[in-house]
């Protein structure tokens, strides 16, 4: 087990900067997920940590050691690949053993013992004598994970390990990975493009875009307090609605003006200086039909263009002015395309982003959850 310190890590491929000055500290035993769209630099970051890519600039430390110049086998890491990376001509056990001689000083007996133990942990003793082509996708991935466990590394690196599995198996393996992480308690770095996977697995999630870290936080914080418009739209499905607004301040406070509404923002004193163009973000589940809102809350009108029954809810595509927003309504609501409906918003869950995409306002202040963050990290 080791902590990892990343300081100004940069990777330059010819004239493309794949990873641009990333800094991040990862605690010992933490499960950290890198998530982002393809080409965001998440895999390259992982591969630099593994030693498969050279580091253009910046420093990488695992524990107390600077490892920039160390060969992969000297870094005490093990990696699991998306396509399992099993040698087709070797059995499960041979795959797990191959390379152990060069990476460690264990005797054959010790290696056999470790393979047996890892197979126990993963519940795959019967797969050890089979070759990859006789295994299902899930079984192959278990062998590949076993391969990593046998090495007892300080750091586990997983590169999209579940992407080649079907949806059902993915959910099951996700739970197993979490349980495994609890059992062996090693520092784990996990790369995925799937935000659901990131949210369910990570102690913390680092959202990457264009080679840079947009935000690193526990999943719920990421969801509730996106630091940037990119994070807001990337995390959560269906994605957060973001519509252009004008901020307008007067004596009574600040309001968000749109051609279809004028929404007063609660406790928005900080925004007083920010008059001008911005965007308002609100998640589909934080918009609701006005008839379901108590009292004299603020409402606005929208025209339904498409309805998508999702089963547990009904997703409405609504037009407000020229902008489209998504609204999660109750399942089986009697609403059809073409209807004009009254909508209200949860005023506790509003976000405002400035023109550069940075969040400048959350209607419930983030400080409230600071303690939660602490507790999570300690855990």
């Amino acid at each position, binding site marked *: 087990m080791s902590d990892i310190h990343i300081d100004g890590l940069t990777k330059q491929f010819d004239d493309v900067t794949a990873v641009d000055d990333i800094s991040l500290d990862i605690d010992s035993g933490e499960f950290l997920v890198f998530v982002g769209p393809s080409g965001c630099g998440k895999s390259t970051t992982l*591969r630099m940590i593994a030693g498969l*890519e050279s580091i253009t600039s910046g420093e990488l430390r695992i524990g107390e050691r600077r490892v920039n110049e160390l060969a992969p086998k000297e870094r005490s890491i093990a990696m699991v690949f998306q396509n399992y990376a099993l040698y087709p001509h070797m059995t499960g056990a041979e795959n797990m053993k191959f390379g152990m001689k060069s990476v460690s000083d264990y005797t054959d007996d010790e290696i056999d013992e470790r393979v047996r133990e890892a197979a126990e942990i993963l519940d795959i003793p019967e797969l050890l004598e089979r070759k990859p082509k006789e295994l299902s996708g899930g079984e192959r991935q278990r062998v590949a994970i076993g391969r990593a466990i046998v090495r007892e590394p300080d750091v586990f690196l997983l590169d999209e390990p579940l992407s080649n599995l079907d949806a059902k198996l993915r959910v099951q393996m996700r739970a197993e990975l979490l349980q495994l992480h609890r059992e062996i308690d090693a520092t784990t770095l996990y790369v995925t493009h799937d935000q659901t996977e990131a949210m369910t697995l990570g102690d913390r999630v680092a959202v990457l875009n264009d080679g840079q870290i947009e935000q690193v936080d526990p999943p719920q914080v990421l969801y509730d307090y996106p630091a940037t418009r990119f994070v807001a739209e990337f995390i959560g499905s269906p994605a957060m609605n973001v519509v252009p607004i004008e901020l307008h301040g007067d004596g009574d406070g600040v309001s968000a003006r749109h051609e279809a509404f004028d929404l007063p923002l609660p406790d928005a004193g900080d925004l007083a200086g920010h008059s001008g163009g911005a965007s308002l973000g609100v998640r589909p589940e934080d918009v609701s039909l006005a008839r379901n809102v108590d009292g004299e809350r603020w409402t606005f009108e929208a025209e339904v263009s498409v309805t998508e029954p999702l089963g547990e809810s009904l997703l409405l595509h609504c037009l407000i002015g020229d902008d489209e927003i998504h609204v999660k309504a109750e399942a089986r609501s009697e609403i059809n395309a073409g209807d004009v409906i009254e909508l209200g918003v949860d005023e506790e869950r509003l976000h405002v982003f400035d023109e550069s995409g940075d969040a400048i306002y959350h209607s419930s202040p983030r400080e409230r959850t600071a303690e939660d963050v602490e507790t999570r990290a300690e855990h």
Partner: protein
Amino acid sequence: MPEFTKPYESRWQAFLLLLPTFAVLIAFLYYPGVETFRLSLQQTILLGTRKTFVGLDNYVSLFTSSAYHWSFAISVAFAAVVVIGTLAASLFVAYLLFQVDVGSSTYLIAAIWPYALPTAVAASVLLFLLHPSLGIITFVLESLTGTSLEWFTNGPQAFAIVALVAIWKQLGYNIIFMVAALNNIPETLTESAKLDGVGHLKMLYRVYVPLMSPTLVFLVVMNTIYAFFQTFPLVDLMTSGGPNEATNLLIFKLYRDAFEFSNLGLASAESVVLFAIVAILMYVQLRLSESYTTYA
């Protein structure tokens, strides 16, 4: 280039791994290859003991020699006949193999075996079977057509016979590539044409041949190289270049000039001409295969 970072960095090891290949290529290919150019500028006298620089004399005598002109002309004609004959016959068999519903793998082996046929064996067998007076095939052909095969004395007939043997030996190689190319054509194209009721011959010329064209170009090049460079045993065993120089292909003439008449300078100049022919063919193949890849 592979998409992974290369795992090994020791230049010393890379050098050692490449060394044996490089040593052989330099000693036995590049060095003699370059020497050919040098020797082609020299004249050897007194059985190879003395060499003098003669500039382009060898080339001049080559290009003004009517015997060389003749040899060059019949080699080109020979290559043309072999290439066209091989492609036509192979395409016919390959198309049948492609169309057949059952037993295609058995038929395939039965059709590609000439790939393993040594040229000297092909020459020996057909020298006898097509022998003007003893050959059984000659006998049948003569009874069927009423003409007489006198290819030991008739130049054009000898040329045709040698070409025929050359084609026979080359069928296997061509069928292998053509069947592979046909099998690579997406089935949907075949099916949609079938639904439109396109006939077999039309399918072949309008659909398959255009789609196979990269393979066909490759085969034209390989068959041409074969016709120029690998047909020595045929001439040596069947005709010795005769009758009346009718089968005195460049490769055979080179052998005789070098090793029978010991005219090493002149023979080297002939080698340089052969080099030019390979170079042009390889260049054509490279350019055309490049243009096909950009199409695809």
